[in-house]
């Protein structure tokens, strides 16, 4: 399809995450991450260093004494929190942009990404199995395709929405009809260019259609369910609104219904205010996010 080919070629010229951020995201997916190597990757990036220190000193993490080194910050945050913080701050500069094609205000996509990550974490706590450690990262990056398609290619969401309503299609199914590609696949392709791990890429690719994945892939289930809840509640949503179809099989595997859904939304919204406030400072820091001139 012509439009698909055009979008694919423009995806290749989409500005990547800054190198240190990519390195950090890659490092933290490894089961035996070398903390020294990780600290190094952070230390060479002023914006990441600033974020890690700011977060480690924030009341959100119960700061009592002020600390000034990355190493101390790593100790205070603990590896799990550090992973989350680093990924979030690596993604923030890109996700903080306005995404015109999807009618997303500046910061809306970041708010949505962080909310979905928090919701996935909360849902993971309610099931017995431990979630793979890339779940949080995948949740943060699940809509990265919207940045590429909405900012660079500058798709127009209106004909897509019109088609979705006319034929009772979900938004991403209508995207495929109109453009030959949807934002989930576009995001997956982008992350493949950036050499991110296949498990993570798979979550991004399937997040609206978990039934097309191996049944019961927990990370995909969690991100799909978390995304459904945040879209429903309108957290960082755009022109596509709530026009998505939740997968009943996933919701039943997670035993997720109205009651748990409301509890998750309540908790996510409470934590989100603290976290996005901290992250938004990093938006735009030292990253060239202007689209190439031949783009769109």
């Amino acid at each position: 399809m012509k439009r698909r080919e055009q979008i694919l070629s423009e995806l290749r010229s989409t500005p990547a995450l800054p190198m240190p951020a990519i390195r950090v995201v890659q490092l933290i997916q490894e089961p035996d991450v070398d903390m020294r190597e990780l600290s190094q990757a952070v230390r060479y990036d002023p914006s990441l260093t600033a974020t890690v220190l700011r977060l480690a000193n924030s009341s959100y993490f119960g700061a009592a004494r002020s600390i000034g080194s990355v190493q101390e910050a790593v100790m205070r945050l603990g590896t799990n929190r550090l992973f989350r913080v680093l990924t979030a701050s690596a993604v923030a500069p890109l996700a903080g942009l306005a995404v015109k094609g999807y009618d997303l205000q500046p910061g809306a996509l970041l708010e949505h990404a962080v909310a979905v990550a928090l919701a996935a974490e909360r849902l993971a706590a309610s099931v017995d199995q431990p979630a793979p450690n890339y779940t949080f990262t995948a949740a943060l990056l699940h809509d990265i395709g919207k940045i590429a398609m909405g900012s660079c290619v500058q798709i127009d969401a209106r004909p897509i929405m019109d088609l979705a309503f006319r034929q009772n299609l979900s938004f991403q199914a209508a995207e495929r009809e109109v453009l030959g590609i949807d934002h989930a696949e576009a995001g997956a392709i982008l992350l493949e260019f950036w050499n991110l791990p296949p498990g993570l890429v798979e979550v991004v690719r399937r997040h609206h259609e978990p039934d097309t994945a191996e049944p019961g892939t927990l990370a995909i289930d969690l991100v799909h369910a978390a995304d459904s809840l945040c879209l429903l509640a309108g957290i960082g949503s755009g022109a596509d609104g709530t026009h998505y179809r939740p997968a009943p099989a996933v919701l039943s595997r997670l035993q997720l219904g109205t009651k748990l859904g409301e509890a998750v939304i309540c908790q996510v919204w409470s934590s989100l205010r603290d976290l996005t406030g901290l992250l938004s400072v990093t938006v735009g820091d030292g990253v060239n996010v202007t689209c190439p001139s031949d783009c769109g």
Partner: protein
Amino acid sequence: MNAPVGISKESPSGHTQAASVTHTVGISDMKATDRPNDVLVTYSLGSCIGLTLFDPVAGVGGMIHCMLPLSNIDRATADRNPYMFTDTGVPALLQAIFDMGAERRRLAAKVAGAASLLDEKGMFRIGERNYTVLRKILCKNDILVAAEDVGGTVARTMYLYMQTGRTMIKSGSREMEL
């Protein structure tokens, strides 16, 4: 607890501005005003409830964006932010506009939101529950709903123009007056 955001025309500067001033009502947020040049707006209403109240005689109005129906799922959060829940937020909005001189019998209530996903099996009934709780509270307070745009699978933006009391809804390319 957050203080209600009352915007009074008796501003320190002592004069009313001619140009309109837009105030955004965030998710789980409320604003009440008696300034004719104010425009209140709330974005991204999904399953949430957006409610505007306007008293044309007193020139007092307000808007709230409630996320969840009932505060009993988290009392501590409701104490910190009553506007998050329909059952605590709507009475707080009513109180705020009564304090500014609005009268119950003159109020025009307009409602938007309560959307759902393409959820044919009805797995999440959050929008529906928000709407039901809202109607109960308004009924208990003898307030009739003058107009509404609820349900479906669209995200809505809601405006209240204090100059005229008009409530407008935008969703995608559709724009209408309620």
